[in-house]
């Protein structure tokens, strides 16, 4: 099972986009948890505005935990769930995941009508970049000296 957010459980950095991970019910459950914070299965079941069985909510929470979207701990005999990320961080990851998934897809950006600031860049040799930076510094110095004189 791919684990999206918890680095302890996810050494793999090639994460699938979030939209492929969450279904509509899962998204609704997440809404409840972001609104309420830490909640038990019963809390979520009572808050959710759809006619669902208690076990469906429990299974959904369990699935979200396995995906790494939720954390949980036991209070008494019941599990209490909380989101691993807050909504803002979630949105950030979501946007990043979506854009990256689009650009990482089967069609590379060569097949996009975009102009990129740094077109067709590959892994740059760091010695080359050092050299270029040195030239830039030299040129900046020249310009500032000319400006002073």
């Amino acid at each position, binding site marked *: 099972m791919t684990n999206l957010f918890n680095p302890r459980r996810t050494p793999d950095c090639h994460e699938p986009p979030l939209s492929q991970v969450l279904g509509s019910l899962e998204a609704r459950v997440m809404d409840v948890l972001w609104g309420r914070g830490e909640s038990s299965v019963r809390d979520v079941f009572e808050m959710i505005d759809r006619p669902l069985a208690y076990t469906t909510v429990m299974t959904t929470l369990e699935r979200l935990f396995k995906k790494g979207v939720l954390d949980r701990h036991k209070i008494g005999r019941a599990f209490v769930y909380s989101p691993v990320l807050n909504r803002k961080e979630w949105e950030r990851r979501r946007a990043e995941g979506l854009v990256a998934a689009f650009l990482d897809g089967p069609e*590379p950006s060569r097949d996009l009508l975009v102009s990129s*600031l*740094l077109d067709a860049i590959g892994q740059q040799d760091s010695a080359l*970049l050092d050299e270029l930076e040195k030239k830039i510094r030299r040129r900046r110095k020249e310009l500032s000296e000319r400006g002073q004189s």
Partner: protein
Amino acid sequence: MILSYWLRLLSLCFASFFMVHVVVGLGVRFAERRIIGLAERITARAAARLLFWVRILPAGTAVLVVAFACAPSYVRFEGRIVVERAGYVCLAMASFGALVWAGAIARGLRIAIHSVGFTCLCRRNGSMVRLAGRPSRMLVIQTSRPFLVQSGILRPYIVISQRLLSDFSNAELEAALGHERAHWLSRDNGKRLVLAFLPGILPFWRAFETLERSWSKFAERAADDIVIAEGPGPALSLATALVRLARMHGTMGPPSWLPRGASLLEGSNDLPGRVQRLLAPSRLGSPKFERLATIWLGAASLLAAGCLAVLASPLLQPSLHELLERFLH
């Protein structure tokens, strides 16, 4: 094979297109190195323009020959015989012609749809920032990946990652946006769309990748030149921005969303060349070679127009029709 009047016309058009396109296309391929060599000696803007028109030349010539010579001669002289036999050579050529066009249209549509999807995605997931005193609209995507692209053709958006927005200094950002604005002013995304719809020589051989890559390189350099024209300060800031962006990509690993293996392609990695030009803007091409490029392009266009005029002339139309008839059968 027995074909109707209209199917024969269609076959003839595709077959004629294919033959003219192959001949002119191979000519362009043959002269490619020399043309790119010439492009290196002229201003980047003129070079981009030269390469763009050279890339259009094969398909443009073939379409004009079909539209103004082959099709009119067929319509004028071919009797309205309901069915007639068409030869297999002509049909094979027509199939190739149809295939190269089908491939080009499919590719163009795929790229156009993909690009519209990308722009919509960025609009949905980015936060819009309007730049004071600028027509550009900027979408900020909350991501740690460093990128700055301009997406869209008629009303383009600049899409920038939050990381770049916070890491770049004001001067670097201004220079980078100036570069992207130059792309917009020269309608480079529109030209990319035109290139996407142009067919290759054979159905599975586009043959003009080097030319298209060189066009892209010179389009980037031409956009840099607009920043250079603003003075040494902005040029220096753009050079700094480019190197910083390259460094960011280096620390994050190669950006998987950029063309795969692009750095391995000859001439695609133009970073040192671009930085060098930004630091030493005096070497911006020679007017002598620019005139030469204009003469070359003008001569090629005149030659194409002359051939077309001869083919389309009323005196030659009966002979042309006879030739096409033989070819058809």
